[in-house]
């Protein structure tokens, strides 16, 4: 065969044609995470998990809706840890790319930034990271842990362990502030007097507590004084610490706790923002024996989880997307909740038979959309939060958790403050 430009063109056209027919029915799906900036270290892992889920679905034949089969075509944008840019990228995904659904956001502020955009364009967002609740948008589905799927089960566990004093510490932003206020009320309700709740209170003019716990700014490094206070608080031996400190501040905090000789046996620390992915970057020897509470641990010993981790490893080896780190990867709750979100959406689309947002929402709200994921069964409820298992684990030196306790099928509830107030009033 003579090799001519014409031949080449013809071959290229033929190749494109086959390619085009193969992907003729595709559906655009947005990924809106920070791939650069301060949040990139956490959020790129979610991008990877989402691409993994999409590849898995495409390989298994795609999504069946209305008698047709669709493959997922990801549209990845970088929010760059810049909140106004998140809003701009959300607009772009919805108005320019016209994506059927978006998976994204990590920080509460990024979610708050895109919320009006999703409501205006009637878009669909799946949000995968533990958060403070107190929000319910008709355009957002929260596969994340609500406070009653993480913080309050942990307190139940500690109460059962015989702990009587609770010290609250967090980074000064919405998630710790709200969580600690909920915990303060929850502890009061369970008979813990206010003087046994450490960290301090702020009261309004009427003497009502409006903020509980000790707060430090982002990237705070000096925990000497606070740990001294905790040590004094824990002298009686029946105390524990509820930790909502975020990010790199945990390194000096746990170093200081270790230096002060506070052992996990005397005064355990339960951290709500440290999962396996974060532990990769922390000195885990300072954290051995401390507790964590999530709806998924990498160490869950079920055939589903083992198979899932096997598929994930295999995918990591084979795929070539730029920017995906292949070595020393961990799996954790936000990643699994991202993955679950994709399958819940797929199930809802297949039930509704269309990608139309209103129909998919109705399907999701029906309470029958269920997915058996690596962390156990998860079911979407009418309140846009899920029913799932909650696990308490103990940190090991290798950055994994040893599972101590499992709470079965906990139903996520976003608005807890109000119901706690009512219960407290009734108790009085």
């Amino acid at each position, binding site marked *: 065969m003579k090799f001519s430009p014409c031949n080449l063109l013809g071959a290229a056209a033929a190749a494109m044609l086959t390619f085009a027919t193969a992907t003729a029915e595709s559906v655009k799906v947005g990924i809106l995470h920070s791939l650069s900036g301060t949040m990139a270290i956490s959020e790129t892992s979610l991008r990877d998990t989402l691409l993994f889920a999409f590849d898995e679905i495409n390989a298994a034949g795609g999504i069946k809706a209305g008698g047709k089969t669709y493959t997922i075509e990801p549209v990845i944008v970088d929010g760059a840890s810049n909140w106004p840019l998140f809003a701009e990228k959300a607009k772009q995904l919805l108005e320019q790319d016209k994506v059927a659904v978006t998976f994204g956001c990590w920080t509460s502020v990024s979610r708050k930034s895109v919320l*009006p955009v999703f409501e205006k364009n009637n878009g669909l967002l799946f949000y995968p990271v533990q958060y403070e609740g107190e929000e319910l948008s008709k355009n957002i589905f929260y596969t994340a842990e609500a406070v009653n799927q993480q913080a309050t089960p942990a307190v139940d566990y500690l109460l059962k362990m015989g702990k009587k004093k609770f010290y609250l510490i967090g980074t*000064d932003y919405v998630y710790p502030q709200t969580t600690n206020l909920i915990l303060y009320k929850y502890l009061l309700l369970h008979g813990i007097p206010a003087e046994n709740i450490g960290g301090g209170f702020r009261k309004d003019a009427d003497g009502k507590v409006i903020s509980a716990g000790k707060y430090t700014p982002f990237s705070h490094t000096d925990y000497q004084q606070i740990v001294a206070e905790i040590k004094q608080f824990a002298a009686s031996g029946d105390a524990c610490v509820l930790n909502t400190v975020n990010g790199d501040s945990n390194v000096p905090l746990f170093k200081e706790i270790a230096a002060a000789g506070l052992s996990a046996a005397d005064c355990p620390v339960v951290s709500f923002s440290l999962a396996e992915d974060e532990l990769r970057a922390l000195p885990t020897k300072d954290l051995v024996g401390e507790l964590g509470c999530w709806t998924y641990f990498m160490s869950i010993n079920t055939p589903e989880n083992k198979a899932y981790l096997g598929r994930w490893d295999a995918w990591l080896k084979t795929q070539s997307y730029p920017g995906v780190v292949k070595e020393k990867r961990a799996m954790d709750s936000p990643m699994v909740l991202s993955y679950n979100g994709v399958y819940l959406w797929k199930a809802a689309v297949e039930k509704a038979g269309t990608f139309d947002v209103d129909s998919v929402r109705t399907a999701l709200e029906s309470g029958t959309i269920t997915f058996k994921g690596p962390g156990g069964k998860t079911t979407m409820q009418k309140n846009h939060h899920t029913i799932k298992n909650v696990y308490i684990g103990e940190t090991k030196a290798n950055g994994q958790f040893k599972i101590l306790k499992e709470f079965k099928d906990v139903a996520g509830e976003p608005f807890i403050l109000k119901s706690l107030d009512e219960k407290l009033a009734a108790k009085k």
Partner: protein
Amino acid sequence: MRTDSKRLETWLTLAGGFLLIVLLPALNVLPLPEFLKVSDFTINLYGKYLCYAILAISVDVLWGYTGLLSLGQALFFTLGGYMMGMYLMRMIGTLGQYHQPIPDFLVFLGWSKLPPFWQPFDSFAFAMLMALVLPGALATLFGFLAFRSRIRGVYFSILTQALTYGACLLFFRNSLLMGGNNGFTDFKFILGHDLRSAGTQRGLYIATAITLMLVLVGCRWLSRTKFGLVQQAIRDSENRVLFSGYAAAHYKLFVFVLCALVASIGGVLYVPQVGIINPSEMGTEKSLEAVVWVAVGGRGTLVGPILGAFGVNALKSWATRAYPDLWLIFLGVMFVLVTVFMPRGLVGIPDQLRELAARFQKRKTDAEPPVTGIEPDKSLP
């Protein structure tokens, strides 16, 4: 020659103003075929760029015209934004998550009444007044102290950066009752108009474009007055200005306060268009970004910052979608290339080309043998 270039400049300004204020919104609103139409998304995006352009001009009047590299302009920009944000928060009314008459984050923090300092922000006029008074007062105080102590050069830059960072940490605190880390978001209405409607966004865009043109024309006028000449003399040699009997500190203070107000107005227009304001906007890297826009566009010109702010941000918007993993490298390489090969920025390109052409021409004439006009005498051996 001089009047010619001046006339050209006037025409270009008018053309640019017409394009931004009339043509683009017209292309957005008129029923046109698809390829001519400017989408609502684009109009909104351009509105944001224009706000950045206002910020960039304020940086350049300080840096390019007065020789003061301020790394605190993002602070004034954000303060203006916060004042607008407070008004917009009050306009949400009871449509928030909690359906309470006070902003959601206050309910979050356990408040049941509006704190006293929030109350006057129900009034648009008051919010606008505060958007001028607060940054103005801060700039006056800071500028007075800094310029009286003759703080110059890199020390001035460091101090402005420290001021911005301090303010950023302050606004992160929830106890300030300004929304903490989340700031303000989920706005609904401005002056009775629905912020989500395309019409309101178009109106805001046009307001921004007009403001930008006014700022541009105003700053150009100022640079040509006697005041502007002293200002540029301070940039070139402050000591000579002092020895000539001018109180340089007063001139600098005036420019500093003026630029704070310009930045603040940019922030006021920015917030309703992007829909969120929070403390990370006054992070130090934001002020640095504005300096980069000016450097890319062309320092010491007034059109340069506009081109820079528009160009860099348009590139960022495009690259974060087209190359989400590589765009930072992209931008970084561009900044390096610009500073090395185009020290006068985008605006300087024509001059640079002209110089290059002149040099090329010169080399060509140098290489040709000199024409003497004298025939060599062939009779000689």
